Structure formats: C-alpha cells, structure tokens
C-alpha cells in the first residue's frame, strides 16, 4: 500500500453517517473512495454544492456542475446548489462537521500552515482559512516529512492558515492529536516504531503507554486490520 492510500484509508474512519464534509484538493479527495457503501455522507464543494459525487462515467459531464477545481462532477439524489455566500455560511457558521485538508506544516500547538511558501509558491488561500477557522473538526492528511524534512515542527516557519488548532493529523507514519498539553501520538503505522516517528518529528511528542497500530478502512469501506 502506498503512503497516500494508507493516509486516505485511515482518514476515512473519521467520517460519520449523516454529516456534512468538505474535502480539500489533492490527497484529501482520495478519502471519498473509502466511504462505507451504506454510510450517507454529504460532501460539500465550496463552489456551491452539497451532495457532490464522482461522475459515474466519462461523457456525462455538465459544464455547470463542477468541483472547486473546476472539474466536472455528478450529484446525489437530493443534492442542493447555492451561492458562495451560503456555501461559506455553511463553513463559517458552524454547519460543517468535518474538513479534511492537506498540510505543509503543523506546529506544536496544532496550528496548520498550508497555503503559501513565501517567494516560491503564492497560490492564495482560497477557502482554506475559512475551513480551518470554521469547521467543527479539522483533520490534516499529509505526508510526515517533505523528502525527509519534518513537517510537524515546534513553530511553523510558513505563514499560518489559522491560529485555531486542528483536531487530528494523519500521516503515513501515524496519527497525532493536538491537545492542550501538546501533540499526543495516538497510533503508529504498520512496521513503524515510536522511535522512528519521534525521529521524523521536529517537536516533542507526548507518548502514551500504549500506541496501537493504525486502524484502516477497507477498500469497500468499514474498518479492517
């Protein structure tokens, strides 16, 4: 299993039936493939839809039905579309249960940086700042390091997306939960030692007595080991 698949399969376990969820671009979109078949999730795309669905077949595109990247999508029966003010009202008003976002860095207080690298990459924040500030739960899905350089650090050197701490960090090495006391290592990936995670992390982790192996969603959804 490649590292992105592993991350997506772990993050999928954070989904709850009947909730409103926003998936960021890139790695987070992979999570949709691991939703259990019988679990009803309402996926929001911030360009103005709840009930977005992957297009069932090429050739069925509608030019007025797209995701936040402008790519064609489908819609579930019961989907709803609306303007951008309502879309961000859903996000900022506390109506969005969960957002899953990629990350460039997370600091010891659980604060995310994911929207720019000064002097090199200035794409703009899009909806990321609203999502991290407004969603009820924020899960970061990212690789543990950038080519060996730790992304979980004492202080972010990159501009923050929000000062609000995220709820959970899922990487290919393990699962880390920001708490008032610091970052707690909750789970480790198969074959990865606690020592290896500590070595790849640039801030002290709180290590509980037991750090169980990571749980994963199966290909068709539902938990497996």
């Amino acid at each position, binding site marked *: 299993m490649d590292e992105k698949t592993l991350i997506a399969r772990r993050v999928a376990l954070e989904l709850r039936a009947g909730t409103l969820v926003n998936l960021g671009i890139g790695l987070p979109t992979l999570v949709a493939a691991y939703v259990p078949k019988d679990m009803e999730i309402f996926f929001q795309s911030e360009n103005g839809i709840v009930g977005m669905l992957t297009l069932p077949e090429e050739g069925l595109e509608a*030019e007025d039905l*797209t995701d936040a*990247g*402008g790519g064609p999508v489908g819609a579930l029966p019961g989907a709803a579309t609306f*303007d951008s003010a309502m879309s961000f009202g859903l996000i900022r008003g506390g109506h969005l249960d969960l957002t899953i976002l990629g990350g460039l860095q997370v600091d010891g207080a659980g604060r995310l940086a994911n929207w720019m690298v000064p002097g090199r990459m200035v794409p703009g924040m*899009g*909806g990321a700042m609203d999502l991290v*500030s407004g969603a009820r739960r924020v899960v970061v899905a990212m690789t543990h390091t950038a080519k060996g350089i730790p992304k979980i650090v004492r202080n972010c050197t990159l501009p923050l*997306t929000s000062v609000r701490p995220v709820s959970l960090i899922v990487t290919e090495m393990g699962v880390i939960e920001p708490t008032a006391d610091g970052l707690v290592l909750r789970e480790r990936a198969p074959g990865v030692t606690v020592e290896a995670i500590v070595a790849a992390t640039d801030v002290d982790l709180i290590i509980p007595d037991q750090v169980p192996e990571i749980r994963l969603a199966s290909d068709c959804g539902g938990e497996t080991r």
Partner: protein
Amino acid sequence: MKKTMKVSEAVAGIADGASLMIGGFMGVGTPPRLIDETVRQGKRDLVVIANDTARPGVGIGKLIDAKLVRKVIVSHIGTNPVTQRQMLAGEIEVELVPQGTLIERIRAGGYGLGGVLTQTGLGTIVEEGKQTVDVDGRTFLLEKPLKADVAFIYAKQADHIGNLTYALTARNFNPVMAMAATTVLAEAQSIVPVGVISPDAVMTPAVLVRHLILRERSHG
C-alpha cells in the same frame, strides 16, 4: 434607458480603469461574451474582483492574458501561472482574500453594511493593517465592504425584463455581485418571455440588472 443591449454597446460604456466584479469559479459561471468583447475592445487598467483568475485562455484568464488588468482582488491565483508571472514582474497587483471573507465583503457592499466581523484570518498575515473588534469576549477581524463600477453576471435564464436564474455550481458569486455594482450587465445562456421564470424561481430580480445582453445569431 433601454434595458437590452448589444454586447459591444454595453462594453463600450466601461471606462478604462473601471472596477469590475466578475462572477464565476474557475471560469464556471463567467459570462463568455462579455469577457471576449472586453478583450476585443482592449479596456485598460481594470481592477477585477472575482474568486480567481481561472486558467490561461479561460474566463478571467483571457483578461489576464491580454494584460488588461492592473489589480485583482481574488481568493487564489494558483491555477493561473500567467497571473503569477505578472505579479512577480510587478505588472499586476494581487490582493489575496480568504474566499469566505471575499464573498462576505461583496455581500456587505451590496447590502449596505459597514463591513463584516469574522475570525477567518485572525492571527495570520491576513490580519496585517486591519482593525480587530471584541464582541462578547471574542475577537473578530473587521473586513471592509467591496463595491464595483460594473458587474459581469452570467445567468442560466433571463426573461425579457432581466429577471435571472442560475445553473447549479455556475451560480457561485453571481447573485451576490449583482447587488454590489453600480452597473450590472447580465448575459444569459437563454432568454425567455416574461412569465416563464416564476416569481419564486427568480434568483436576481430584474430591478438590479441595468442591461441584459442581447444574444446574437450564430450564422456566419
């Protein structure tokens, strides 16, 4: 003043240096003929307020390609390398605004509000130079309203007097921008007789639309 207008006539009324709100999200919901005509007439030094600058050759990207834009106020430019190149070369000023804050600033402009209070951007570089306001023990950032000289609106249907409906995710910024500009120019995929769009279905009332862009026969 006559409500319906040829696209060339409507765009001719836009001054160089005008501020333009343009509906659309990655080009979806951006009026294609208004954009093409603005490029054809070579309007200069425009200030564009929109979600994004799409991609080169697409939607607002065409205005960027033609170097007609002095400044953009947008939530991201990551999908358009031409905008990024012009920014690094100092040819275009880019003001980046969180997407939810951007739409709320436009809404504030259109609804007569003095601004919006939000926690988005608090403690980040978005806060720089802005006022914060405490309400019941919580701190908010004051974000000021946005208005524009002209709005480019793209509807799914318009009736003959300019009532508008929008399609699916092509709605996005359009109805909010139709409230926030001095002159609203509406282009529609189809134009239908009055009465076809029922009052409950109208998303932008005709009273907001200054000019409805006439369709053109596509022969020749």
